[in-house]
């Protein structure tokens, strides 16, 4: 069990109702998204979301270390 901080952006933040959230987690990043999706009702399926850890893109199968900062990246719309 590790403690991670999750950052939310755009529609994920609106659904979560907060910018970030500290949570205890066991398992990989995919499991973390699915848990939080169930909690907050994220409309975006995991296939349309990317994940970043410590400010760099990460793999859904990566397991966060204790204290990690995790960001869910919904489909981008800059430009």
């Amino acid at each position, binding site marked *: 069990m590790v403690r991670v901080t999750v950052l939310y952006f755009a529609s994920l933040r609106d659904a979560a109702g907060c910018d970030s959230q500290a949570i205890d987690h066991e398992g990989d990043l995919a499991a973390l998204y699915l848990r939080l999706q169930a909690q907050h009702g994220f409309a975006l399926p995991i296939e349309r979301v990317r994940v970043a850890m410590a400010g760099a893109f990460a793999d859904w199968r990566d397991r966060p270390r204790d204290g990690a900062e995790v960001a869910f990246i919904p489909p*981008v719309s800059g430009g």
Partner: protein
Amino acid sequence: MARFAIADDAFDIAPLRAGLLRAEAGAYASFEGWVRNHNDGRAATGLRYESYRVLAEAEGERILDEALATFAIADAACVHRTGELAIGDLAVWVGVSAAHRDAAFAACRWIIDEVKSRVPIWKHERYVEGDAQWLHPRPPDSQ
């Protein structure tokens, strides 16, 4: 110096362009994205961009590094706005200098396409009817 930047406020293009001047560069191509008064058939009144700044800067820089490694260009730069923007405001600027225009155009086009598809920036669009939404386009975004 960073070639990619996120700007929280309106920025001047002139010094950015001047920074790309090279005696060996005969061609300069640039692209600007401006806030349009319509999108997907709906009348828009303005928008807000937000970014995951640390990752946006890293990914933007990576795109410009890749452009410099891929195309025969002298230099390239890109700035993307965040915050509240009105119709007509400058949202994103890309500039590329090169010896010849083929490479300048190709790299400029490639950079804006990559920025739009890879950099963690999100657009929150407001409509004349009063509603608003986050845009999360499905790839390929052919807009």
